[in-house]
């Protein structure tokens, strides 16, 4: 056999015919219950996404910038004589979240398309719903970071007292973002191999998340009124939570059949 020096100069390559004796067919780690396994898988996928994002911060920065740009553009549309039109703040906030959320979803799954890593995940022994939830969690954390910036920005630019009823406001934001992202993650995942996926995602997502937008905007507007209508905001919050439960369940249910061709 010729002596081969590979490009990396590492002669270990030529010895690869022998497997290290101590590593026989691998046994899996301590067997745990399906639920522990499920949660662990969700966390593994999410952590991987966050790790990648922490490296490049590409989606984070571009989404934040886009959200800010959205707010600005809408501001020019809705500010009259230097003062914001009433109720504009609520609408602008949620529209910016929806637009930037769609963008983030598209980018996150575009990343999985390169190297076809989504296929590798589908071949792996994780339950498909765990894959879905892992991705969803990653998106939610990203959007939380974006909203942490956009909400104060809107409060500032539109003199909107968004922090007066912080608990309810936070509840609306969380419930609304979860609803939006739950549907969005499913659609973005299923469109990964489809044609025209860039335009298909908003086309499919916006009509279905109309209730989220309505509830989010009306709930926020209720809180921004001179005498905040808390019961109203709470009613909208409960609708959002109900929406989240229904659509999360539906998404978990349909993820497997939709991802298998």
């Amino acid at each position, binding site marked *: 056999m010729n002596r081969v020096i590979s490009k990396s100069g590492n002669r270990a390559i030529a010895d690869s015919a022998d497997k290290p004796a101590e590593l026989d067919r691998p046994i899996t780690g301590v067997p745990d219950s399906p639920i522990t396994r499920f949660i662990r898988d969700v966390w593994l996928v999410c952590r991987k996404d966050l790790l990648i994002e922490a490296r490049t911060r590409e989606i984070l920065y571009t989404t934040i910038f886009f959200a800010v740009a959205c707010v600005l553009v809408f501001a020019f549309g809705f500010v009259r004589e230097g003062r914001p039109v009433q109720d504009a703040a609520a609408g602008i906030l949620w529209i910016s979240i929806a637009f930037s959320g769609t963008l983030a979803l598209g980018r996150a799954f575009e990343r999985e398309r390169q190297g076809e890593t989504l296929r590798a995940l589908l*071949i792996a*022994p994780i339950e498909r719903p765990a894959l879905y939830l892992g991705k969803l969690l990653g998106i939610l954390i990203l959007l939380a970071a974006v909203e942490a910036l956009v909400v104060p920005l809107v409060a500032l630019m539109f003199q909107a007292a968004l922090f007066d009823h912080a608990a309810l406001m936070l509840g609306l934001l969380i419930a609304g973002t979860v609803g939006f992202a739950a549907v969005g993650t499913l659609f973005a995942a299923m469109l990964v191999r489809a044609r025209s996926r860039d335009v298909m995602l908003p086309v499919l997502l916006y009509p279905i998340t109309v209730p989220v937008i309505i509830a989010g905007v009306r709930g926020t507007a209720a809180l921004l009124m001179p005498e905040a209508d808390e019961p109203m905001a709470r009613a909208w919050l409960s609708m959002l939570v109900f929406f989240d439960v229904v659509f999360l369940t539906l998404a978990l249910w349909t993820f497997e059949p939709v991802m*298998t061709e």
Partner: protein
Amino acid sequence: MIVDFEQLQFVEVTRTFGRRRALNRVSLTANAGTITALLGHNGAGKSTLLSIAATLLEPTAGSIRYGDHEARTAGSALRSQIGMLGHDLYLYSELSAAENLRFFAKIYRLDRIERRIDAALQRAGLSERRDDQVAGFSRGMRQRLALERALIHEPRLLLLDEPFTGLDEAAREALRARLGGARAAGAIVLLTTHDTAAIESLTDAAVSLVEGQLQ
């Protein structure tokens, strides 16, 4: 649930995409400890066959048996015995070599993860580059890493799509050796290629696909 099997069987498998028939009543059997080559031109249906074997695609007709199991009933446990290396390598370019391996090792619920990673990196000749991002690797380095990633859980069924493409002679030799090792350990290896020279004296069986049909 531990799922294992000694044989992969395709029984009259057909797969159509609208008007295009990618596979036409394909039947083949591959046993543990063998390497089977799927030959054929582009578009002959080789990748489709691999995707079906990997449980990514469902057949339009026919069935696939993994020993006594079927994909639909065996569930996710079956997938822990399947390893695949596609043309796109399935690597995260923003993560380092070690991180890629670690992620998949954890997904496959392996034990002694760090030792396996070390051994895999050594086999790939990437021990010194273990903490470098894959984005900076050459094609050859990525392929070596991708192969180790596909093999890290030592699957029973190993599916490789055109693994010899773009490799230099040293790398081919290494790959041949690696596959020989896998065969010795009892794996069922199914690889596609249109380069018959590369697989000379390596394979135990070769089947040819022409327009979705076995010749």
